């Protein structure tokens, strides 16, 4: 009788409970969906803004490599060739296209349609192949950033002249060039091969990318082993006492220290005390190491905790030393979890700007760093700097740089996930 009652009660409540179950599940799906949606939203909005930066408008000019301009003495000495006035060649060919433009101001405007990078491009061409001198070639040179913006439709032409960066006169020239097929969008190799520049059409992320690479290498090479070693010590060796409590609280607390304070620390310790060079990826890597260590240690300890104690007992029981137990049995099992912490920590390090401010990595650096001691900047800093630049053309480049950073991040994550998979093969 009582049974009957109990089961009736159960049955009566079922509808409500299943509704709760469905709701709960829905919350779960909604949460994941929200997370992924945000990611997608961010990604698409960045991609929508940034994809056009992978193209760059070029102008086709007929350049006469006039020996009189390039090498009046005919020596063909590299010194002379590199110092020649290539801008004059560009100007001359523009002039030939628009002979009707005469006023000084107008001609300045006309010449401004192509990038100042055009002359460097010609110089490089001549340096690579001096035989060009004396010939006339049709050359695609990068257009000025305003032209680029116009060609990509970022400058509306149906508004009053005063509200446009490109006025009516140059607009007419551009239309003419367009009709002659002299304007074309081409893949923007500069973006991937050049360092920073104040001319958007000449700016690239190679320098920042290399800087990030060097910095991340330092960070990874230091923080992973140190983090793992610390986690192992605290979890496997350290006695539970005040001293280890202190270390534990310290590590948790370091996770909450604002990143810029790590910059202050880096300034005081690495630059002022240890006299390491300013703006160097080495120092950046060191600072980011200190910043990411807590994350790696905390995740590493959690991973070590989840290795069943029976495995340790088994190894100790047949006479393995503690260290052997850890390296032979525990570590391989804990590695996937440690990699999770490393992924998050490195992702954070890769996106960090503030601490680098204090150690001179928020800087305009054109030359591509070639090592750990060369002045360098990193991708998020490049993004930060470009985002603060007045030129409109930097808007899309900022987004494109973010895309590259995300790509970097995805590759790093993918490697770590693969590694995690590999080690996760438990039996």
């Amino acid at each position, binding site marked *: 009788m*009582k049974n009957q009652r*109990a*089961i009736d*009660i*159960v049955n009566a409540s079922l509808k409500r409970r*299943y509704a709760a179950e469905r709701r709960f599940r829905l919350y779960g799906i909604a949460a994941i969906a929200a997370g992924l949606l945000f990611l997608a939203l961010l990604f698409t909005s960045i991609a929508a803004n940034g994809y056009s930066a992978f193209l760059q408008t070029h102008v086709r000019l007929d350049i006469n490599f006039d020996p009189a301009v390039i090498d009046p003495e005919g020596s063909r000495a590299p010194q002379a060739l590199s110092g020649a006035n290539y801008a004059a060649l560009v100007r001359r060919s523009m002039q030939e296209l628009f002979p009707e433009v005469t006023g000084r101001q107008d001609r300045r405007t006309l010449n401004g349609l192509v990038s100042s990078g055009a002359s460097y491009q010609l110089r490089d061409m001549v340096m690579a192949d001096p035989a060009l001198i004396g010939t006339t070639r049709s050359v695609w040179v990068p257009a000025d950033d305003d032209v680029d913006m116009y060609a990509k439709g970022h400058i509306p032409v149906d508004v009053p002249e005063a509200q446009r960066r490109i006025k009516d006169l140059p607009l007419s020239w551009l239309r003419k060039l367009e009709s002659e097929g002299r304007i074309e969008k081409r893949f923007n190799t500069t973006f991937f091969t050049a360092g920073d520049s104040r001319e958007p059409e000449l700016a690239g992320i190679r320098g920042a990318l290399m800087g990030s690479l060097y910095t991340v290498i330092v960070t990874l090479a230091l923080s992973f082993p140190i983090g793992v070693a610390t986690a192992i010590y605290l979890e496997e060796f350290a006695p539970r006492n005040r001293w280890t409590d202190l270390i534990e609280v310290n590590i948790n607390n370091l996770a909450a220290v604002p990143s810029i304070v790590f910059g202050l620390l880096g300034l005081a310790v690495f630059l002022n005390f240890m006299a390491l060079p300013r703006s160097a990826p080495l120092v950046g890597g060191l600072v980011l190491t200190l910043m990411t260590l807590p994350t790696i240690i905390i995740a590493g300890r959690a991973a070590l905790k989840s290795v069943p104690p029976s495995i340790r007992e088994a190894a100790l029981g047949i006479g393995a030393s503690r260290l052997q137990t850890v390296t032979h049995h525990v570590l391989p099992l804990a590695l996937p979890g440690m990699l999770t912490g490393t992924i998050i920590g490195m992702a954070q390090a890769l996106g960090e700007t503030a601490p680098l401010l204090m150690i001179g990595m928020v800087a305009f650096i054109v030359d591509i760093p070639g090592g750990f001691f060369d002045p360098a900047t990193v991708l998020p800093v490049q993004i930060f700097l470009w985002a603060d630049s007045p030129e409109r053309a930097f808007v899309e480049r900022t987004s494109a740089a973010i895309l590259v950073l995300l790509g970097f991040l995805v590759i790093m994550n993918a490697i770590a996930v693969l590694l995690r998979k590999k080690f996760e093969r438990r039996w």
Partner: protein
Amino acid sequence: MNSISYEAKMGMEQREGVTAGAARPGDAVPAADVSGKAEDRRMVGDHTHPNPVMVCRDVTVHYGEKRAIHDVSLDVGANEVIAMIGPSGCGKSTFLRCLNRMNDTIDGCRVSGSILLDGQDIYDRRTDVVPLRARVGMVFQKPNPFPKSIYENVAYGPRIHGLARSRTELDEIVQTSLEKAGLWGEVKDRLDQPGTGLSGGQQQRLCIARTISVSPEVILMDEPCSALDPIATARIEELIDELRGNYSIAIVTHSMQQAARVSQRTAYFHLGDLIEVGDTADIFTNPRHRLTEDYITGRFG
């Protein structure tokens, strides 16, 4: 207690089996041989019960490609204790977990055949596992109290099923359940202490109390005493005997002594087949199938 005293009869025999084995050192028989060579695996004995609560017919379970049990038909009768014995891996737990669909939680586990509870197929699509499991409770091999207080452990089921309308009613359920599980006396003064702090035997009794708190009709026990010492085991066996008055109990055990002590009927499984079912007394004194006999006398292969 209508079970027979197994040890008295079998002890000597089994002992000798082991002694015989030990007498041939190095000649350890590989476990694989246990499978036997194309033996007769047809079931003997009567798998039905005059007053069944659960009726299983032709139950086959696959884990992925692997078949764990094959065409098992067996009844669980009202107010009886039915023991399931058999060598490791023969499918006792698998069969037991079919009875309250705990197998649902295992990926790739497929069940076919029919299992009826009060005439209704529990694997029917319309059957709801929640009330099913409230009616068919389960106690596991390793005591698994929740990391909550003793009170909350027992109150958990009534709470989620909404069996108590008030706090007093809940208190009452908790007390009766703990009393039935023979634990009340030991814990009544510390109901708010964690259930995980009890001794192994107490924990197992707590799990039993938790199970009976929702007034199930059938209780499934999967080797409930294997982690316990003799005293705790004896106490749980007492309890089972007592619970039989109100519940039907299906128990898996590795200890033939235990099966002999607590059960009225015994089912012997072998490599996924149900080999023999019958009165416990009969099975142990007079096994009809050679495999059963081999097993209970400790002779194998």
